[in-house]
Structure formats: C-alpha cells, structure tokens
C-alpha cells in the first residue's frame, strides 16, 4: 500500500499549480465579476495539455492517468472554479465518451480538437423537465433515411455557448424505454441547433450554462455515438468519470478557501491574540483540514480504480458526495473565520462559497449519489 504520487503525477501537479497560481488565480475575481468565458486562461490550460489529460496521445491528449486528471482539476479549481468546470467538462463529459464509445472517424473529427483544447465540447443530458430522472428523455430522434431528425431542448448545459460539439441524448424508440435512448455527437453549426438562453448563476459565473434547442436538427449516421439504444449506458458511465472531476473541483475550491482562512487567522487579532490561537478557530481549521484530506483520498481511490479498469461507480459517487458536501461546509466555515469581511467581495471567501454550491447539484445531485451508493451497499450484502 502506498499513498504517494508517482514522480510524473507529482510533476504534473506542481506544474499545474504553478501555472494556475500565476496565470489563473489573479484573474479569478474578475472572471467571476464579468461572468465572461475565460478564454485566455482556457487557452493556457489547452497549451499545457489539460483539456484531454487522460486521452491517449494518439488522439491529441496527454496520455496520463485519471489520478493525474484529478490532481490537475484540484489545482485549476483552487485557482478558479469556473476554469475547473470548463476543464472537467471537456475532459470527462465530452472527450471521455468519445474515447470510450466513438469510432476512429469520430475520434479524429472531435476527440482530437477537444483534447487539444482547440474546441470546447458540451454534454446534453438534462432537459427542462428532466434532471435527476434522466431516463425520462423528452428530446426525440426520429429515423429519417440513414440518419435522424432531433427535436427538443437541453437545459443547464455547461460550455453550451462555446461548444462546437455536444454529446446529446435523445429518445429514439420510446417503446423501449431506457433502452430506446441514443447518444449523438451534434455539431453546433447544424441547422436547427441554437443556444436559446444563457443562465445567470449563483457561482461559477465564468463558465457558461445554456439552454440548447434542437429544432428539426438533421444528423447523419456518423453522428450516432455507440449503437442505437446505448445512450443511457453511455450517459451513466460518462457521469461516473465526470464525478471524479467534479469531486476534484469541489476539493480545489475547499482547499483554497481553507488556506486563505488559515492565513487570515494567523494575521487577524482579537482579544489580544491572533484568532488562530482561539480554539473556536483552531477547531474549525482542524475539521476543515481533516475533511479536505478525507475527500482527497476518496477521489484518489475512485480515480485509481478507474485507472486499473475496475468498477468505480460507487467509489466515484462516494467521492463526489463527500467532496461536494465537504466543500460547502468548508467554504462556509472559511467565510465564518473572516467574519464580516468574508461576506464582502474584497475577499474571495464569498465567491468560494457560491462556487462550491453547484458541486452538490451537477453531474448527479447529492441525492442521486446516495441512491447509487445505497444500491451498492445493499448489493454487497
């Protein structure tokens, strides 16, 4: 048993940390304030190969493992949570299903530019009336010659406004239920594809969240990902991997909030001594640090299982559930350490709290994670 990082993993972490600290962190407040997609920072991440970390080099990626992916996602998210989710979606939700289920032609056309960061990708599963209950897809795909005509709306699509391609799910054969769902790679410039609305959000304001409409969108056979009926399986296995990324994002946000609060507690005095000397503050810091470490270990375990080709759905659900709820607690306590200053925008504490909140919701709410975990626990019996 060995909890250490390999030399390669440690090098990646250190180089991403250094880049993120210098080239992303200083802009995080402005990115949040402007609510604009951080192209400069995304381009730097692309140059470093962070948009396809676990994608083989042959397909434009960095050819590293999922532990490395988690490390990079933590570092980027510590600097800027918006950049963290942009990176995570390109890696896990757009790139990974194409790597796993795509044909060589699809990989050539989409995976390469996604992994290199030349284009952004998106993942279209949620709908206005279909969130956690993803099997109840209302978007339809009707056979039309050798292709399909797709109609419907996708909701809360990260990178939706920038994406050049979306991995979208639609009901092809409603009488087959879950097994009637298909997955498609739909180019954003297809006629009938439109970005209907960009959401204004509580946090991760630099990342776009859009509603995408498909109005008589006609796609050919080359757009189908996997086989007809594979859609739901593709959606779920993709989310398993995505959860590692979001857990790492939650972890990065929490770590940053913790470190800032700790440093503040050493400088700020009350009742004649630094507040770090008060047990009320010490104990918060101790709990924050402990829970951060616990989350990181759960994340590494899930990533490692994925790297070893073992089943990791339950481990990823545990990592996501724990890390996201931990992140909400930690960012909340970090803000508390700052007192009134924490509530004001002069300090990043309030942004961390807002940014962390989404991690309990997207890529499977905490409630969905608990359903997944409980199913596994009961099956062990």
């Amino acid at each position, binding site marked *: *048993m*060995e*909890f*250490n*990082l*390999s030399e390669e*993993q440690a090098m990646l972490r250190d180089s991403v940390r250094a880049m993120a600290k210098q080239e992303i962190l200083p802009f995080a407040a402005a990115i949040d304030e402007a609510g604009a997609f951080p192209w400069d920072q995304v381009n730097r991440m692309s140059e470093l190969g962070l948009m396809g970390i676990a994608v083989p080099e042959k397909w434009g990626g960095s050819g590293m493992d999922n*532990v490395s992916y988690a490390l990079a996602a933590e570092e980027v998210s510590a600097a800027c949570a918006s950049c963290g989710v942009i990176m995570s979606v390109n890696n896990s939700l757009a790139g990974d299903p194409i790597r796993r289920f795509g044909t060589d032609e699809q990989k050539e056309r989409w995976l390469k530019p996604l992994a290199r960061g030349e284009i952004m990708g998106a993942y279209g599963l949620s709908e206005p009336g279909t969130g956690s209950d993803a099997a109840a897809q209302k978007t339809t795909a009707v056979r039309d010659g050798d292709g399909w005509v797709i109609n419907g709306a996708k909701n809360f699509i990260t990178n939706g406004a920038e994406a050049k391609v979306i991995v979208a799910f639609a009901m092809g054969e409603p009488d087959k239920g879950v097994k009637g769902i298909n997955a498609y790679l739909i180019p954003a410039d297809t006629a009938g594809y439109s970005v209907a609305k960009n959401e204004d959000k509580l946090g991760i304001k630099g990342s776009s969240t859009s509603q995408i409409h498909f109005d008589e969108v006609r796609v050919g056979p080359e757009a189908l990902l996997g086989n007809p009926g594979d859609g739901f399986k593709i959606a779920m296995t993709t989310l398993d991997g995505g959860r590692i990324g979001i857990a790492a994002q939650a972890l990065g946000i929490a770590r940053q909030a913790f*470190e800032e609060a*700790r*440093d503040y*507690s*050493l*400088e700020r005095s009350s009742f004649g001594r630094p507040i*770090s000397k008060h*047990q009320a503050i*010490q*104990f918060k*810091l*101790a*709990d924050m*640090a*402990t*829970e951060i*470490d*616990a*989350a990181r*270990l*759960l994340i*590494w*375990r899930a990533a*490692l299982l994925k790297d070893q080709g073992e089943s990791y759905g339950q481990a990823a659900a*545990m990592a996501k*559930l*724990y890390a996201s709820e931990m992140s909400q607690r930690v960012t909340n306590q970090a803000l508390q350490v700052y007192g009134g200053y924490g509530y004001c925008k002069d300090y990043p504490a309030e942004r961390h709290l807002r940014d962390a909140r989404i991690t309990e919701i997207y890529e499977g709410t905490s*409630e969905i*994670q*608990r*359903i*997944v*975990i*409980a*199913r*596994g*626990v*009961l099956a*062990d*019996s």
Partner: protein
Amino acid sequence: MNLGLSETQTILRESTRRFSKERLAPFAHAREQNHCISHATIKELGDLGLLGVNLPEALGGAELGAVSYALALREVAKGDASVAVTMAVTNMVGEVIQHFGTPEQQKGHIPKLTSGEYFGGAFALSEPSAGSDAGSLKTTARRDGDSWVINGEKLWITTGDQAGVIVVWARTGEPGPRGISCFLVSCDAPGLTAGKPEEKMGLRASHTVALSFVDVRVPSSSMLGKEGEGFKIAMRALDGGRIGISAQALGIAGAAMDEVRSYALERKQFGKTLDQFQAIQFKLADMATELEAGWLLTLRAASLKESGKQFSREAAMAKVFATEAANRAVREAVQIFGGYGYIEEFPVARHYRDCRVTQIYEGTSEVQRIVIGREVCKDSGF
C-alpha cells in the same frame, strides 16, 4: 499510488476475519455479561500473531507492519470491541518497549506480550487530575540508590489489574512535560494495588482500573528510555495508538453496518422492506461513505508509519474522523433498528455503547483537533 493489499495482508485479514467471526463474535455478549476476557482468548490472539503484528519475529512478533496491524485490529473489533482494545494496548506497549527499550527490556517483556503469556500490557499515563493535559501528571518517582520509588495514582488504566507489565509515567524532575520519565513496572510489584474495575458504558469485558502506587520500588534498569524522555515516549506511542483506535472504531461500526444492512433487507413496514425507503437508503449511503473515508485516512497514517515517515498529523486526522464517523454510524444503526436497537437482544446496542469511548481515549477528539490545528498553522507561509 497503490491502495491494494499485498498477499500477506489479504491472508492476515481473511484469517483474522474468520477468527473474529467464529471465536470472538459469538461470545462477545457473554464476555460482556461476565465482565471478563479469558486468558485463553488472549493466547489465541497470540497464536495468530495478533499481539505483536508490527513487532519483529525475533521477539515473537508477526513483523507484518502497521497497515496489517490496522487491518487485523478492525477485524477483531468487528467481533468484540473489548478484545480489540486489549489487543490494541498490548501491541502499543510492545511497540513502545521495542522502540525505546534496552535489549534486556525487549527480551524480558516482548515475547511474553506477543505470545499471550502475559494477559497483556498496560499503559499508565492518565491520572485523576491529568487526562488530556498529560504533561501535568503528579505521580512521582524518587531516586533511591540503585532504584526508583514511585508514588501516586493512575486512572482509567485498561487491563491495569491483569497486565503482565505496566508502562508507568512519573515525574522525576521539573514541572511540565520535560520532568517526566517512563518505567516498566511488573503487575506484582509490592505497593502497587489496582482498584475495582470501573463500571462502564461499554467495553465491559475489558477491565479499566485505578492504580495506586505506594512506595513502589523498581530497579534503575526498569526505566524506559532516558530520564526526562517520558513525555516524548508517551506522545510517540499515542500517535501509533491512534491508528489502532481508528481501526477499532471502524471495526465496531463495520459490524453495526453489516447487521443493519441485513436487517433493512428483511424488516418490513408499510408493505415493503426498509431498504426500499430512501430515508433508510440515505442513512446507509452516508454511513458507508464516511466509514470508507475514515478507513482511507487510517490506512494513510498506517502506511506513513510503516515507511518511517512523520505521521502525527495524519494519525490525529484518522482518529478524529474515524471515531466520529463510527459514532454517527452506530447511532444511525440503532435508529434503523428502532426499538430493537435499544434492547440488548441485538448486538447493535452494544456497538453503540462500545463505540463511544473511541472519541475519548488515546486522546480525545478535542486533543486531536489541537494537534491538527497546530500542524496546519505551521504549513502557512506566515
């Protein structure tokens, strides 16, 4: 990174699991009722190598490392938490003698600890007025020719009336942590008397006693480590001990988890089994997730210890997290059992009672947080 078990570790876990299931769990209730663990059970632990998991073979240990120790202790605790604490303290005493003792001290005591010839070892640090604040202890040791004379009172000493050897901390110098030294005292030393075992909320088969030292004379050769080194020895031993208590807590909670899962699959209310209700599912999900996180923290601390690295902070994190997660889990387990959880017919009530002390002994949760808080502030650039 490699989170898998080695073949040896897997074998140890499986054999300990079998032993715990067949030899410990079925008699845990009886042991508790009788307030007693038989010496034969201790010897069985010895035969399996469980009393010196991380001690050298030359001294009768199994020499399997700190990770194996955590694995084995968790399995034993699933069967009987009282046996587990006896095992934990005996391993801790063996390790502290191995780490700080002279070859004579090692040869004199460790083989008797690891074989189970001794009922176990005891660790006498706490006093009536010195618990978390161990550095303020009042027991004294006065030099008298070639011996030391110990006077004072110790409290909450696990196995204190049964152990073959007791590690005793006493003040030999200035006030505060630097004036403390450590001694190995035989259980039959004249002047040493043990009080009646305390009546406790849990761990009822394990004895917890007060020890009274009235002019207890021990030879100079019984000092463990150097004069004034006692506090350092205690802290080092407790760092390792915390890994054990984390594993114990997780074992207790693991047993509760297994029982509650089976119960949820069988028990019917409103026309369906409990596992069909999200209220119950979500409790199980939280319990499993937190116990897994606690286990990873415990293994990380053990793995660092095994590779000879610093592990104080990590052991403190493991202990506070694992014991608190385990206590939440056993509380929820009682809740899922409902009224049946509150009666002693099912073991879950015992698990709940047994688990509570893990947040108190070998450093309370509050002491762990002080350790962690101090450490994380050191990381800062300030």
